[in-house]
Each structure stands twice: as structure tokens, then as C-alpha cells.
């Protein structure tokens, strides 16, 4: 018996990448096995959730392995290590229960593909296209507004759109340029 530091998603499948939740919330097969043997449960934070969000893609280790993500994980790891240190100081037996195959939580098996990256493969013009601004553009708009600066005119490169036509794209850009 002791303290089991468990991956966040074992108690909360809502944190999983889309299409990855195996059940509504608590993944009982692992939790029950620990508790049936008298182990305390202590949940670790999910490193991907706060950094890459709920709409993140499935990813391999190489895609997440950036300096910024490393710093994020290091910050979380400090909090977990401090907790483990307390339990070890109390003489508790400690185990860490991860998620094999995960690019973040694998303990003996992770996922890897050095060549994966770039544009996900799905058809052009699918339903993800909708009117509105992107997040960065919205933030630029907000930042300019706070400074009392009008949002500038905009033009767009349209290559990703289903009805993309180079001549139309060019005409649109020229129209913006020519009409202050």
C-alpha cells in the first residue's frame, strides 16, 4: 500500500484528446485496481490540456517536443515532485501511473514519428470553414482598440478555400489595396 500518483485522465476522461475518451469520466479499471489494493490516489495535472487545449490534434512526441512545452511540463512537474516529496518524507510507498503510448504520459511506451507534421489530411472545403476572424486577428483587433486605433482593412490569401481561384484572389487583394 502507498500513494499512487495517477495520470489526470484516469479520473477525468474529459481531458482526453478528441475521440480519445474511453468512458464518461472515471476510468475505473485502473482506479479500482489501485483502490482494491488499498492505495491512495493522487491525481497529477494533464500537461496537454492547458497547453494545447481541448481541440488539440492527436500528436506524437516530436510534435509536442518544443521548448515552450518542455517549460510548461517542467512547471507542472515541480508541483508533482513537491507532492511526491512530502509522501516520500512520510515514508509512503509511491508509484506513478501513466498512460502508455501517450506522447506526454507514457511510462515505458510513448508515441513517435519524426516525419509527422504539416497539414492534416482531409478534403478541402470541409465544414471547418466559417465566417469570422482567427484568434490572433481578434487579439490584434482588441489590442488596437485598447489603444484607440482603428482596425485596418484586410485582404486574404484564399488557397485553402474550396472555391479558391487565383484570379479572384488577386482581384480581391487589389480591391482592398486600391480602396482605402
Amino acid at each position, binding site marked *: 500500500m502507498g500513494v499512487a500518483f495517477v495520470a489526470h485522465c484516469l*479520473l477525468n*476522461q*474529459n481531458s482526453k484528446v*478528441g475521440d480519445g*475518451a474511453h468512458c464518461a469520466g472515471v476510468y475505473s479499471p485502473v482506479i479500482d485496481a489501485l483502490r482494491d489494493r488499498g492505495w491512495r490516489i493522487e491525481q497529477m495535472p494533464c500537461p496537454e*490540456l*492547458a497547453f494545447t487545449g481541448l481541440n488539440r490534434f492527436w500528436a506524437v512526441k516530436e510534435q509536442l517536443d518544443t521548448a515552450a512545452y518542455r517549460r510548461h511540463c517542467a512547471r507542472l512537474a515541480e*508541483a508533482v515532485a513537491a507532492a511526491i516529496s512530502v509522501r516520500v518524507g512520510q515514508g509512503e510507498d509511491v508509484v506513478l501511473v501513466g498512460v502508455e503510448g501517450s506522447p506526454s504520459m507514457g511510462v515505458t511506451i510513448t508515441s513517435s514519428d519524426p516525419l509527422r507534421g504539416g497539414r492534416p489530411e482531409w478534403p478541402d472545403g470541409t465544414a471547418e470553414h466559417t465566417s469570422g476572424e482567427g484568434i490572433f486577428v481578434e487579439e490584434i483587433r482588441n489590442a488596437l482598440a485598447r489603444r484607440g486605433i482603428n482596425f485596418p482593412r484586410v485582404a486574404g490569401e484564399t488557397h485553402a478555400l474550396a472555391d479558391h481561384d487565383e484570379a479572384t484572389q488577386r482581384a480581391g487583394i487589389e480591391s482592398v489595396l486600391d480602396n482605402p
Partner: protein
Amino acid sequence: MKADERSFRIALVADRFVNPPPRGVDAVAAAAEAGWGVIQLPPDDYPAEVTGPLLAEVAEQVEEFSRHGYAFVVVGGHAGLAGALARVGVAVPDQITPATAVQLIDFLNGRPAPAAGWDASQAPG
């Protein structure tokens, strides 16, 4: 996304209900039965320098889920939770300190549906 079985419901649960004493209320079992996920709040025996960062991470994750319309409740609470949530601009969810597992399950089952879901108009989360 059809295979994803998440509930979009999350209970923030005090340690004494995650690791209950004998004959105590087992909130993990109750959450599993009612179809809720669990985010565990730091155990009360941790010193402040350990609790603070753990609560901050809880709050950050709650913030992210909240931005996507997930539903929350608090089970049992934690003295530092309100402050941690306030720092990320999230209100403290409705709370219960259950006397029995049945009471907790009834509470969870009686909550309104979350804003998030797999409705075709919504993104995951």
C-alpha cells in the same frame, strides 16, 4: 468523434472524498456511476508551498474546460479553491458536502446539462 464517450461533466473533489475513510462517502465511485469526471483537490495535509501550485494547476485546467462549456460542481471543497479560481476569473461552482453516496449521486444526476456536447454545431469540448 463519435467514439468519444466523455460526459462534459467534472466534479472538483476534496481528497477526503477521493480517498475516503472507512464508511466515508466515495465520490470517485459516485462519479463513475453518474458519469462525471473527477479533478482532485489537494490533500489537506500538504504544506502551503505544495498546495498553492497544485491548486493553481487545478484552476488553470478548470479555466480551460470552462471556456468550452463543460459543467462543474465542487464536492467537499478546499479552503484555497475560491482564491485559485478567482485568479483565473472562474466562479466557484455549486457545491455539496454529501453525507451519503446516494445523496451525491442524486445531486450529480440532477445537475443541468452542460453547454458543451457532441451536438453537430459544437467543436470537441
